[in-house]
C-alpha cells in the first residue's frame, strides 16, 4: 500500500479507488453483522461465493460481507446493488436463483422481498421497508456499503476526508470549537458534552494525554455500538484521531469486548490498514501529528464499562471504580488526563467536521442534537438497530420502525438504559427521544437500549431481574452498593414470590435513598433507578403482590 503524505495524495488515492469501481457493476452485499451471524449467514456468504465461481462471474459481480444492516429480525439480509434490492431471511437454497434472476436479469424474486405482516404490502427496495423508511441513518447507513475489512471501501464513501480537513486545515482549537458548537453529547449514558470533556483534557496540565473509545457495551439489550465498531471501525477510528489532535494526545486506546472475536479482528485490521496508508502512526498525512492506538479487551463484568474502572483495567488492574473527586479527564489512566467517549460519540465526530456544526445541529431537539442509535428488543416485532433523529417520539420508534407488539398484545412500557435505567408507561409514549425529557421521567436514555414490554410483563419481575444482574456485575467493593443491592433483591424476590410484607415498599425506598447517595460509583448510585421508575408508574403492581400475600395470610388465620 502506498503511504499518503498530503491531502491531495489522499484525494488521488480516493479517485483511484473509485475509478476502479463501476457504479453499474452488480454487488451483492451480505450482512455479516453479529445478529445475522447467529442466523448462519456464513453459509449464505459461502453459497454466494461458490455460485459466482461456478458461473464464472468473478470479474462481473462483487460480493461484499458487510457489517450489520440493522434489521436483525429479518436476517440474513442481502442487498443487491446498484438497484438496492433487499432480500430478507435468505437461505443458501435461495442463492442460485438470486444470482441468475436478480443479479444477472435484474428480476425481483417476489418471495424473498419484505412483506408487511399486517397488510401484506411488499417492498423490494430497502428505502421502502417501514423499518428503514422512518430512520435517519447518518451513522449506520454506510454499514451496507462497506466491507469493514477494507479501508478502500471506507475511502470510497468519503472516509478520512474529515481527518485530512482536521489535520491540515484546522487548528485543534477550531476543532474543539466545532464540536462544542455541534453540542455533541456523550452517547454512552451520561449525555455529557463531549466538547467540554475534551477541553478539560486539553487544558489539564501534563504532556502525556490519552483518548479512549469505550466499546464495552455492557448495557443489557444494547447492541448498536457493536454494529458500528465491527461494521464500520474506520469511522470510530477517524473520530478518535481527530479528537486526539484536538486534545493533544498521541496515544489512544480502544476498549472492546473480549467475547466477540469479530470485533477485535475488524478493529485490528482497520488499525493495520490505516497505519499502512499513513492515516495512523507517525506524521499522519504529512501533518507532523503522531498518534498510536492500542486495543484492550474488557473484563467481562458490567462495571468494567464505567470510566474509572475501565481506566484501571487498561492499566492492568482489576476493574474497580475509583472515586471521581478529580475527573478522569484531568487524572485518568496512570494519573494522566484521559478523554473517554463512547463508540457512537466518536463516530459522530467525522460527520460534524465534514459537514459542519450548523448542518449537525439542524437535526434533533433543543438540547439533544443529531441522531441516536437505539437497539430494539423485547416484545417487539422488529428486533434490531435503528437510527433516528433526536426528537422522534418513542411511539414512532416502537410502532413506526419497530412494527409494534407481536401476537396482538398491547404495549405496557418501554424500558430505557438497561440495569441503570427506567421505564415509561404506555401513556407517555409520545415523549420525544431526548436526553433531558426522558431523564425527567425517570427513564434516562442510557446508551440506547429500548426494551419493549407487553401487557403480560410483570414490572416487579423486570426490576428484580435488573437488580439480580447488578448484584453479579458490580465490583462489590463498597457497602451501600453491594449490600444495598443484596437486600433490595431479597425483598423483591419475596414480593415476586408472594411473600412480600407490608412496609416492604417503604424499606425499598429507604435503601435506594442510601445506595443512591453513598455508593462510590454511578453503578451503585443508579442501581435503584429501575426500581424507582417502576414504583413511580407501576406501584400498584407491587402493592397488589403484597396485598395478595396479606389476604392469603388472613385466610389462613380464619
Amino acid at each position, binding site marked *: 500500500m502506498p503511504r499518503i503524505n498530503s491531502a491531495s495524495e489522499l484525494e488521488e488515492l480516493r479517485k483511484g479507488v473509485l475509478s476502479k469501481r463501476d457504479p453499474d457493476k452488480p454487488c451483492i452485499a451480505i450482512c455479516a453483522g453479529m445478529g445475522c451471524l447467529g442466523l448462519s449467514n456464513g453459509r449464505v456468504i459461502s453459497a454466494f461465493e461458490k455460485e459466482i465461481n461456478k458461473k464464472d462471474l468473478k470479474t462481473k459481480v462483487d460480493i461484499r460481507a458487510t457489517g450489520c444492516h440493522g434489521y436483525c429480525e429479518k436476517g440474513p439480509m442481502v442487498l443487491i446493488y446498484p438497484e438496492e434490492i433487499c432480500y430478507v431471511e435468505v437461505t443458501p437454497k435461495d442463492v442460485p436463483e438470486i444470482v441468475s434472476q436478480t443479479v444477472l436479469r435484474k428480476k425481483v424474486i417476489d418471495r424473498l422481498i419484505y412483506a408487511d405482516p399486517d397488510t401484506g404490502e411488499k417492498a423490494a427496495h430497502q428505502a421502502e421497508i417501514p423499518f428503514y423508511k422512518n430512520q435517519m441513518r447518518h451513522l449506520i447507513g454506510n454499514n451496507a456499503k462497506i466491507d469493514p475489512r477494507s479501508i478502500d471501501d471506507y475511502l470510497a464513501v468519503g472516509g478520512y476526508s474529515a481527518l485530512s480537513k482536521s489535520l491540515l486545515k484546522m487548528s485543534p482549537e477550531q476543532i474543539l470549537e466545532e464540536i462544542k458548537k455541534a453540542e455533541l453529547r456523550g452517547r454512552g449514558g451520561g449525555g455529557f458534552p463531549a466538547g467540554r470533556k475534551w477541553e478539560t483534557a486539553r487544558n489539564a496540565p501534563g504532556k502525556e494525554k490519552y483518548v479512549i473509545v469505550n466499546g464495552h457495551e455492557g448495557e443489557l439489550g444494547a447492541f448498536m455500538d457493536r454494529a458500528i465498531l465491527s461494521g464500520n471501525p474506520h469511522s470510530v477510528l477517524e473520530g478518535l484521531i481527530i479528537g486526539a489532535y484536538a486534545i493533544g494526545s498521541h496515544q489512544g486506546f480502544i476498549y472492546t469486548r473480549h467475547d466477540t472475536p469479530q470485533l477485535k479482528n475488524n478493529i485490528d485490521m482497520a488499525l493495520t490498514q490505516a497505519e499502512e496508508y499513513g492515516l495512523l502512526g507517525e506524521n499522519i498525512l504529512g501533518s507532523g501529528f503522531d498518534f498510536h492506538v492500542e486495543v484492550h479487551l474488557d473484563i467481562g*463484568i458490567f*462495571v468494567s464499562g464505567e470510566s474509572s474502572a475501565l481506566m484501571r483495567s487498561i492499566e492492568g488492574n*482489576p476493574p474497580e471504580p475509583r*472515586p471521581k*473527586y*478529580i475527573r478522569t479527564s484531568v487524572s485518568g489512566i496512570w494519573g494522566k488526563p484521559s478523554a473517554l467517549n463512547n463508540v457512537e460519540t466518536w463516530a459522530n465526530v467525522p460527520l460534524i467536521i465534514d459537514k459542519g456544526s450548523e448542518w449537525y445541529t439542524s437535526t434533533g431537539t433543543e438540547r439533544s442534537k443529531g441522531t441516536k442509535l437505539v437497539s430494539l428488543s423485547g416484545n417487539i416485532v422488529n428486533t434490531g438497530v435503528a437510527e433516528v433523529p433526536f426528537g422522534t417520539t418513542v411511539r414512532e420508534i416502537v410502532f413506526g420502525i419497530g412494527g409494534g407488539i407481536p401476537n396482538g398484545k398491547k404495549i405496557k412500557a418501554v424500558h430505557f438504559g438497561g440495569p441503570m435505567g427506567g421505564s415509561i408507561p404506555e401513556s407517555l409514549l409520545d415523549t420525544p427521544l431526548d436526553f433531558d425529557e426522558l431523564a425527567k421521567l425517570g427513564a434516562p436514555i442510557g446508551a440506547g437500549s429500548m426494551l419493549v414490554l407487553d401487557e403480560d410483563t410483570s414490572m416487579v419481575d423486570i426490576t428484580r431481574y435488573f437488580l439480580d444482574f*447488578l*448484584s*453479579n*456485575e*458490580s*465490583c*462489590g*467493593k*463498597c*457497602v*451501600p452498593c*453491594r*449490600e*444495598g*443491592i*443484596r*437486600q433490595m433483591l*431479597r425483598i423483591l424476590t419475596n414480593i415476586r414470590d408472594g411473600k412480600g410484607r407490608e412496609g416492604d415498599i417503604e424499606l425499598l425506598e*429507604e*435503601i435506594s*435513598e*442510601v445506595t443512591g*447517595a*453513598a*455508593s*462510590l460509583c454511578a453503578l451503585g448510585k443508579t442501581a435503584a433507578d429501575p426500581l424507582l421508575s417502576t414504583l413511580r408508574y407501576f406501584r400498584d403492581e407491587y402493592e397488589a403482590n403484597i396485598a395478595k400475600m396479606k389476604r392469603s395470610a388472613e385466610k389462613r388465620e380464619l
Partner: protein
Amino acid sequence: MGKHKKTSEIIIQIDGKEVKAAEGMTVLEAAQSADIFIPTLCHHEKLEPYGACRICTVEAEVRGWTKFVAACLYPVEQDLVVRTRSEKVDKIRKMILEFLLAHAPYSPQLQDLAQEYGADQDSFEKESSFCILCGLCVRYCAEVKKKNAVGFVDCGARREIRFIPEIAAKECHSCKECFPLCPTSFLQAAFVLTESLAFSRDSSPTALKK
C-alpha cells in the same frame, strides 16, 4: 492523596468550625487535625485511602452544591463546608451499620457505632459470611508487607477474601499482623486462612460454608 505534597493553606469549615488544612489533605485528615470525629471502618493510617465502607460519608457543600462524599478520600478545597452529622448522614450511617451487622453482629466496633446511630442489628436477615470486606487485611498484606498472601476473589455480591495457599503457607504463620486489623475482631481472616491451609483447592471455601 493523603500525602501532603504542597503546603499552601486552605481554610475549610467543618461543623461550623473553621479548620486550617493543607492542599492535598483529605476531609478526614483535616477533621482529625481539629479533633472532630468522623467514624471510619476501612480506613487505616498506614494504607492508601480506600473508600469502601462509606461509614465516613459526610455532607460537603461546594459553591452552593451539597453532595455526599467519603471523608477519607475527599480532598479539601478552599471554602469547602463540611457537615459530619445531619439527618441524612446519620440515616446513611445507620443503614450501612445495619447492612454490616447482618454479617458481623458481634463486632465490638460495629456495636459501638450501632449504639451511636440507633442501628438495629436485626434489621436484615443474618448472612453466612461475617466478613464486611473492608479490605484491611488484603491491603495491609499488599501495601505494608508486600506479600499479597490474601486477596479478593469474585465480584458483586459474591466477593470474598481468600488466602493464596502457596504464599500463605510460607508467610502467614510468622506474621498474622493483619488479624488484629479486622473490625469483626479478626474472625474472618483467621477462619479463611485456616481453611485455605487445611483443605485442598477443590473443596473451596464457598462450598464448605454452605
